[in-house]
C-alpha cells in the first residue's frame, strides 16, 4: 500500500518525535525546569500524537504510567508496542489503516477505545478488556451482523458506535444490536429509547433466551469451580488438603500393583472394605482437627497483631504529642530569631532552640527504645505461643498418623493370614474358585506370597509416612515464617522510626540554619 503515502513521509515513533511533541506543550517556565532537572518519562500521564504521519508504533514502553494516549489521524497499519502501557484508560486509534484488532490484551484498564475509521472486518481479541465502557468501531469493514453478540461480554459497555459499517445496511440492524447488547445506553451516539428496547426484546426473544441460559450456566460453572478452588485453598492453609474422604487411602493402593492382585484372594474384599472405612474415618477426624487447629493458629496470630497495634498506636500518639507541642511554638520562635534586635540575642535564641531540638530528638529516641524493649517481650511471648501451638498440632497429627499405621499393620496381618491359608488351600487343591493367572503366579510357595504381601504393605506405609512428613514440614515452615515475619516487621519498623526521627531532626536543624539573622556588629 505504499503508493498511498507517496506525498508524505511515513514516521515511526521515536525519542525525537516524543520530545518534539512534549516541547510544544510546555510553557517557558516548565522548559526551564526541564532544562535544569531533566524530565522523567514515567511522570507523563497523557500523550497526544495525532496527525504525525505515524506508520509504526514504537518506543512507547517507557511511558509506563500513561493513562491517555491519542494516536488518531495517522497511517498506522498494525496495533503493536502498546503491551506495557497497562495503565491506559483512554486509547484513540481512529482514522488509521488498521486491519486487525490485536495487541490490546494487556490493557485491562481500558475504558474508552476508539477504532473509528479503519479497515477492520472482524471483532476479536478484546476478551480481557472487561472495563470497557465506550467503544467506537464505526466506519470500518464489519459485515456480519451476528458478530455483535461478541459485545455481550463487556459488562460495563454503555456506548457503542457501529455506524458506517456494511452491517448497518441490514434492516434488522438497530433492533438486533439493542436486543443482543441489552445494557447499551447509546448506540451510534443516540440514546436507546425504552420503546426500542422493548420492541427489540420482543422480536429477538427466542434468540436471546438460549444465549442467556448458556451464559448463566457458564457463570454457575465458573462460580462452582471457584468455590471449590477456594475451599481447597482453605484446606491447604490448614495443611489437611485431601484428607476429607478416601483420597489418601486410594492413593496408597494406586501405587501398589501387588495389592490389586492380592485383592482377588477370597475374603480380602470384605477385609479391604472394613479397612477402608476405618481408615477414612481416622482421616476425617484428622481433617476436622486440622481445620480447627488452623482457626486456633489464625486467632493466635491476629491476637498478637492486635496487641502489637495497640502498643504501637499508644507509642505513636505519645510521639505525635511531643512533636505537636514542639511545632506549636516553633514558628514563633524562628520568627523571633529572625527578627531579633541584635546578633547576640539572635545567637542566644538560636542556641536555645537548637538545644530544644536536641531535647526533642532525645525524647523521641527514648520513646523508641522504650517501645523496642516492650515489643521484644511481646515478640518472645508470641514465639513461645506459636511454638506451643505448633508442637501440640505435631503431636496430635503424629498420634493420628500412628492410628493409620496401626490400621495398616492390622490389615497387613489379616491379609497375610488369608494369603497363607489360601496358599495352603491352593496347594491342597481345595480352592473352590478360579483365580486370575496373575494371582496364580503368586500362589507358588510361601516365600513368594509373603514377599508380595510385605512389599504391598511397605508401599502403603510409605504413602502414610510421606503424607505425615508433608504435613509436619508444612507446620514447621509455618511456625518459622510466622515468627520470622513478626521479628522482621519489628526490625523494619524500628529502622524506619529511627530514620524518621533522624530526618525530622535534621530537617528542623536545617530550617533553623536557613533563618537569616542580623549581622554581627563590629
Amino acid at each position, binding site marked *: 500500500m505504499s503508493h498511498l503515502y507517496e506525498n508524505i513521509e511515513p514516521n515511526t515513533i521515536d525519542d525525537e518525535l516524543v520530545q518534539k511533541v512534549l516541547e510544544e506543550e510546555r510553557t517557558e517556565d516548565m522548559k526551564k525546569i526541564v532544562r535544569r532537572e531533566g*524530565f*522523567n518519562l514515567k511522570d507523563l500521564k497523557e500523550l497526544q500524537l495525532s496527525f504525525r504521519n505515524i506508520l509504526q508504533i514504537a518506543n512507547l514502553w517507557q511511558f509506563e504510567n500513561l493513562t491517555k494516549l491519542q494516536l488518531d489521524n495517522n497511517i498506522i497499519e498494525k496495533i503493536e508496542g502498546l503491551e506495557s502501557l497497562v495503565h491506559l484508560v483512554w486509547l484513540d486509534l481512529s482514522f488509521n489503516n488498521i486491519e486487525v484488532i490485536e495487541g490490546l490484551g494487556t490493557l485491562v484498564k481500558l475504558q474508552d477505545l476508539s477504532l473509528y475509521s479503519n479497515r477492520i472486518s472482524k471483532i476479536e481479541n478484546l476478551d480481557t478488556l472487561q472495563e470497557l465502557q465506550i467503544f467506537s468501531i464505526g466506519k470500518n469493514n464489519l459485515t456480519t451482523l451476528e458478530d455483535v453478540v461478541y459485545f455481550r461480554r463487556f459488562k460495563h459497555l454503555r456506548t457503542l458506535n457501529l455506524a458506517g459499517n456494511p452491517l448497518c445496511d441490514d434492516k434488522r440492524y438497530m433492533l438486533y444490536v439493542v436486543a443482543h447488547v441489552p445494557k447499551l445506553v447509546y448506540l451510534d451516539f443516540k440514546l436507546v429509547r425504552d420503546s426500542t428496547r422493548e420492541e427489540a426484546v420482543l422480536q429477538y426473544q427466542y434468540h436471546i433466551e438460549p444465549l442467556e441460559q448458556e451464559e448463566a450456566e457458564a457463570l454457575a460453572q465458573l462460580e462452582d469451580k471457584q468455590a471449590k478452588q477456594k475451599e481447597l485453598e482453605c484446606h491447604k492453609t490448614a495443611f489437611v488438603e485431601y484428607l476429607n474422604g478416601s483420597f489418601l487411602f486410594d492413593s496408597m493402593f494406586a501405587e501398589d500393583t501387588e495389592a490389586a492382585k492380592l485383592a482377588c484372594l477370597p475374603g480380602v474384599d470384605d477385609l479391604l472394605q472394613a479397612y477402608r472405612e476405618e481408615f477414612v474415618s481416622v482421616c476425617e477426624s484428622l481433617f476436622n482437627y486440622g481445620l480447627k487447629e488452623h482457626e486456633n493458629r489464625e486467632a493466635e496470630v491476629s491476637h498478637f497483631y492486635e496487641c502489637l497495634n495497640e502498643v504501637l498506636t499508644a507509642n505513636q500518639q505519645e510521639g*505525635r504529642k511531643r512533636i505537636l507541642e514542639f511545632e506549636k511554638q516553633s514558628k514563633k520562635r524562628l520568627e523571633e530569631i529572625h527578627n531579633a534586635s541584635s546578633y547576640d540575642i539572635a545567637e542566644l535564641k538560636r542556641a536555645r532552640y537548637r538545644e530544644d531540638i536536641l531535647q526533642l530528638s532525645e525524647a523521641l529516641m527514648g520513646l523508641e527504645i522504650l517501645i523496642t524493649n516492650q515489643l521484644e517481650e511481646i515478640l518472645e511471648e508470641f514465639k513461645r505461643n506459636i511454638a506451643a501451638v505448633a508442637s501440640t498440632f505435631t503431636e496430635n497429627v503424629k498420634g493420628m498418623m500412628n492410628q493409620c499405621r496401626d490400621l495398616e499393620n492390622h490389615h497387613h496381618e489379616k491379609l497375610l493370614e488369608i494369603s497363607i491359608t489360601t496358599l495352603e488351600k491352593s496347594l491342597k487343591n481345595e480352592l473352590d474358585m478360579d483365580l486370575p493367572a496373575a494371582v496364580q503366579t503368586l500362589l507358588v510357595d510361601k516365600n513368594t506370597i509373603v514377599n508380595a504381601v510385605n512389599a504391598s504393605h511397605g508401599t502403603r506405609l510409605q504413602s502414610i509416612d510421606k503424607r505425615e512428613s508433608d504435613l509436619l514440614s508444612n507446620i514447621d515452615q509455618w511456625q518459622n515464617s510466622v515468627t520470622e515475619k513478626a521479628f522482621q516487621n519489628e526490625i523494619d519498623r524500628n529502622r524506619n522510626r529511627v530514620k*524518621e*526521627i533522624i*530526618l525530622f531532626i535534621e530537617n528542623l536543624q536545617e*530550617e533553623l540554619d536557613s533563618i537569616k539573622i542580623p549581622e554581627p556588629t563590629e
Partner: protein
Amino acid sequence: MDALEEKEEDEQTVEEKLGSLAVSDDLQDVETKVPVEQDCVPKHSVDVSQLPSSYKTNSPKEKQLLHIADHFLQQYIHLCPNRKPLFLHPVNECGVEKFVSTTVRPTLLPYTELYDWDGCASFVSDYLVMEPLECPITLPSSLYSPTTTLKHQRGNCFDFSVLLCSMLIGAGYDAYCVQGYAILEICTLDETQELCPLLRKPPEEAGKPKHEPLHGLRVHAWVLVLSGKRQVPETFFINPFTGNRHNTTDKRFLGIESVWNHRNYWVNMQDCRHGCKDLIFDLRDATCWEIMLSESNHLQLLPKEKEELFDSDTVREKRMSFDMPPSWVVPIRISPRQFEMRYYQGKKTTLYSKAKLKKWAPYLNGNGLVQRLTIYAGPDYTDAVEVREWFENREDILVRREVNKQTQLTTDYFSKGHSLCLKAHTYKLLEPKTGHTMEFYSEARVDGLQKRVETATEMTEYFMGRDDFLYLRHVDFGKQGEETQRTDMNSKPIMQIKECFHRNPEKPADEDVAECIFLITEEDIHLTYHLKDKYITASKKLFHKLPERASEEHEVFMSLEACTTYQAGSFEKGKSLFHLYNLLKELTAKEKWVKEEVRQSEAEVLTILKIRQTEEANIKLSVPIYNRERNKERRRQQEAMESTVKDELLGQKKQDLHYLAPFLIRNGCTDKLNKVQALRARDDCLTDFKHHLTYRINLIQAHLEKAVEELQKRHLWFQENKNQLSTKEKDDYLSSCSESMFHINVLEQRLNREKQMAPQKYLALKDKLCMDPHLAEHLGYI
C-alpha cells in the same frame, strides 16, 4: 443516712394518717380541725334552661338504678361501718340525682390528637381551669355532666376525671374514674416542686414532703387506665389536672375508695394503708373489688362469705338482670375553634420549680408565639436566667428562640426550608459584624456547610460529607484599611486561610493533604499531609510564592529555594521540581478560588441577616390549607360551593321563601317597605289566596257535577237497553258504575274538606304574613 431515716418517719406518719382513714371514728375530729385557710369554694352556677330533658329528669330505669344503688350503699354501710361514704349518685347541674356511671359519656372526638391517651389527657388539663373541691376532705355534693364542664371550661377533680374518662373510653381505652385520696400537691395542682417537663433531664430529686395535717384525707379523683385494650402494656393512673401519667405504685396517690366506668361501679376492698402500691387491679377478683351491678357469670364466682352481703334473693335477681342504663349526657362536642383555642381564653400559665411555663393558642399572638418557658435562678420567679419561646405557623418557619439572659445571646431555630438552609442562628444583635453563629441543614446544601461562626476578626466554617474531604475552613481577617493588597475597600482584608481535610483513602497518606494554610500577607502556602501508618511526623511542604508579575515576565519563579519540603522518613527530598511546579500552579489557582469562596460566605452572612431583619420587622403567620377555620380563602371557596349546592337542591324552598315576591313587585317595592305598601301587599296576597281557594273548590265542584251527570246518563242508557245486553256488557256496566260511584264519593269528600279547610288556611296565611320578615315591621301590632 439522715435522709433515709426521715423517709421512714414520713412513711410512718402516712401510715398513721391512713390508719385514721380506715378507722373513721377520728374523721369527725379531723373534720372539725379543718383549717380555715382551706377556703371552701362553692360551685359555679349553671344556666340549666337550655339543657335537654334527660338532664332534668330520671327515666324509670335510672330510678330503678338509684334504688339499687341505695340498697348497695345500705349493705355497704352495714358491712363496712368504718369506711367513708361512697360517691354513688350526686346531684347534677340541674339538681337531679344521677348515678355516677351514667355521667360518663364515652365519645370519640374527630381529632387525631385526641386518639391517644396522652393527647386526651393534656387537652383536658389544658382546656379546663381547675377549681378546688368545696371542702378538701369530703366528697363534692354534685357532679356535673362533661358537656357542662366543657362549656364552662372549669371543674374540680371529679369533673376533670369524668370528662377525661369519657374521652378515653370513647377512644377505646379501658379507663375508669377513681375516687380516692392523694397528697396536697396533687389535689391542689401545685407543681412548684416539680421540674418542668421541658427541663426534665436529670433524675428527679425526691423533694422532702412537708408535714401536712390533712395528709391522707384529701379527696381526689383521677383516671385509671387498665392494661389490655389499645395495646396498653401496663396499668397506670392519669392525673387529670396535669395530664401526666403515674405508675400505680406512685407514693403520691394514697388510696382508692371506688372506681367506675360507664358500665359499672366497683368498691375497693383492699387495704390502702401503704398507699396504692400493693393494690391489685383485677376488677374481676371479687375479694379485691366489690362490684355493684354484678354480671351473671361473675356472680357464681363470688365466695361464700361475700354472698351474705345480699341477704335476699330478690336483690340478687335484680342485680343480675339489671344493665346500666345509657348515659343521660348528650354526646361531647368540641368545635374546631374550641379545640384550637385549647386553653381557657386561649392561654395558660403553669408554675414549676424555678420555672414558669406560659402557653397560648396558635394565632392568638401576632408573632406566632405559642409557648414561653422562663427559667429563674431562684424559687421566687424574679431573676430570669433563660427564656425559651416556641412559635407556630410563622412564615419564616422560626420554631424556637432561646434567650440567655446572662450572655445576652439569642438563638433562633428554624425548621427545614428556610432560605439558604438555615437551621439555627445565634446572635446578640441582628446587625452585621456583631458575631454570628449560623448552623445549616448541611445535607440540603450543595457545599455541605454545617456551621459558620463569624466574629469581627475570624470566620470558621464546618462542612460535612464533601467530595473533596474538606471539613473546616478558618479565615483570619485583618483590620480594615491597614491592607496593602488589592482588595476593595468595603471588606476586611484576608490575612490567612486554613483548610483542613479528612483522609482520602484513595490517595497515599503522604500525598493526601491534611491541612493547607494560605498565608496571604506573607505569600506563603503551607501544606501538611496526613500521617503515614505508624509514623509520628507528617510530611510537609512550604511554598513561597513570588509575585505574579514575575511570571508574566517569564522569569523562573520556581526554584528550590522557593519550596521547602520535608518528606517523613525518606531521604528523598520529595518529588521532582516539575511536580512542585505543577503543585504550586494548582495551589495558586486554588488560593484565588478560596478567597472568592470566603467573600461569598461573607456576602451570604449579610444576605441572611438582611432576610432575617425583614422577616422580624414584618412577622406573618401562615395558615395550612387544611385549616378551614383560619384559611379565609379556602373558607370562601367552600361556602361558595355549599351555597351553589343549596341553590340547586333547595330550589323549592327558595320559591317558598319568595312567595311574597310577586305582590311586592306588583307594588313596586324594593328592599324597604313602607306601611301602605306592606298593607297593600298583604291584602293583595290574601285576596289572591282567597281566589285560589275558591278556584280550587269550584274546580272540584265542577268535576263532581260532571261525574254525577255522566253516571246518570249511563244509568238511563242501561235502563233503555237492559234487555239487549249480554251478560258481559252487564258486568261491565256494573263495574263502571261502582267505579264512578267511588270517584264521586272521593270528590264529595275532597269538596267538603276544602270547604272546611279554606277559612283555616286563610287565617294561617294571614298569621304568616304578620310574621313575615318583610312585613312584620308594619303588621306586627295587628
